[in-house]
């Protein structure tokens, strides 16, 4: 119990930010029309590619060869997620352009 309380106090700001972001994530997309489901999923997919920052940090402080190799791999994978994600989303959404001119 004490451990839990200490843990909470130590990370209370991060925990609170997590809670707020949770709500925000839900609120922000709660009125999405179903035709946007797939592009939205794809866009969100690109956003979690932010994990690449972690990869850059590890890679940036890698000393031995193994870490270098793994870090290199991690950065590549993260970049794939980010770049591929945004580009695919953009392609999907390209098709909605015409719709706009209708309104």
């Amino acid at each position: 119990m004490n451990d839990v309380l200490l843990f909470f106090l130590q990370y209370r700001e991060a925990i609170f930010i997590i809670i707020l972001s949770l709500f925000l994530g839900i609120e922000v997309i709660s009125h999405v029309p179903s035709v946007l489901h797939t592009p939205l999923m794809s866009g969100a997919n690109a956003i979690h590619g932010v994990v690449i920052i972690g990869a850059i940090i590890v890679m940036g402080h890698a000393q031995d060869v193994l870490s270098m190799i793994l870090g290199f791999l991690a950065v590549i994978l993260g970049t794939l997620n980010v770049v591929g994600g945004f580009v695919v989303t953009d392609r999907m959404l390209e098709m909605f352009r015409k719709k706009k001119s209708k309104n």
Partner: protein
Amino acid sequence: METINLLIQYTPEISILEMSYILASVLFIVGLKRLSHPDTARNGNLWAAAGMGLAILFTILFHKKDEESIGNIPWIIGALAIGTAVGWVAARKVKMTAMPQMVSIFNGMGGACAALISLMEFPKLQESLAVSGASSMLHGETLAILFGLTIGGVSFAGSMIAFGKLDEKIGDIKASWIRYLNLFFLLMLVVLVVIIMFKHPVGGDNILIYLLTLLALVYGVSFVMPIGGADMPVVISLLNSFTGIAAACGGFLYNNQAMLTGGILVGSSGTLLTILMCKAMNRSLLNVIIGAFGGDASANAEAGDKTVKEITLSDAAVLLSYSQKVLIVPGYGLAVAQAQHLCHELDVLLTSKGVEVKYGIHPVAGRMPGHMNVLLAEADVPYEKLLEMEEANNEMQNTDVVIVIGANDVVNPAAEDDASSPIYGMPVIKAWEAKNVIVMKRSMAKGYAAIENKLFYHPKNNMLFGDAKSTLQKLVAEIKNL
């Protein structure tokens, strides 16, 4: 009594870096918000991408760990370049209809990236803990690493299987024992995480962490394996939110606002999105995960005593040419037959004869939300011609002919009048309210929900059997010959 001591060395660079992270988070939020409105969606994607670029650039420039800047910069830039080139080309080259597969792969890459980070940070953390002597069992950084590893691993393996299934490289397994195996794996994962938490620092042998990695991968595979291939869009959305959480674990570990917010945003919005997707198909998430439905839909087996009317190609050609208003209702079969271009050809041909041709788009026609929009856009059908389900239904009574091409569940009247049907309550396109219906499919086979469709026996209905592509080809030729 313990003291929590947070020491931050102030330098202008660190402050700027933190600012950039917060700005990136805001851009993610705004981007996500704009992504969920049709008019702003494309622009929203760019906002989010800008946030990402900002965060990456400033990390490379200003990040410091124990007074040390980011090193290995040539390598990092090299990796970024490779990833960008490959990702860009892959995303640009992929066929419209293969996009879900692509999303699944990219999602898996993110999961793998999160898992790799955890794998690399774990030994380092263990060393430093061994030196300092950890006091609390509930150690935040260890927890973040273990969660990031597990969730990232599951997401990676699951996404790869989902990709395989969508690409039809991997078939469906229907065996209920897998369910119990999955529960067992899940339990093992939890136990292993708890053991590592208690034991830490685990010391020199990091065997446990490799075991955890392996288990996460195995679980990812066995989690997705039994789920039907057609449900993959939902599964990908779920795995997407998993990867979000894995990324957030990284954010917790590095106390990095952009990673934390970005990850959690995706985690929560992705979960909601998954639920929304299930709702659009009138199913629950649990139902999707535990197994496909329809096997028990025996109530409507009394189809034998009804008659099915067929129509010849030339009759269909005449009927269509002399109509005033035609509505095309595309479904999964159109995508299977890759007949979207022919469909557009038919449309152009009829329009040139003075027929008003529109398309009625059901939100879950096909196998992913928006599938039909993607498909028809590929064939350059103008957006103005696409009616949403409600619009289509409103115009139904004035419609002379509805042509149903490879659709089945989305025009099933059971959704309206048969309370025992598994799709009861799902809104459908009411083709039977039009004056005539032509259904193009290869056989009397059932659709995705594996249930009978009374529309096919409806007096107004006319079947035109055959593969959608060849039937359309012949039909177009017939009309030209009239």
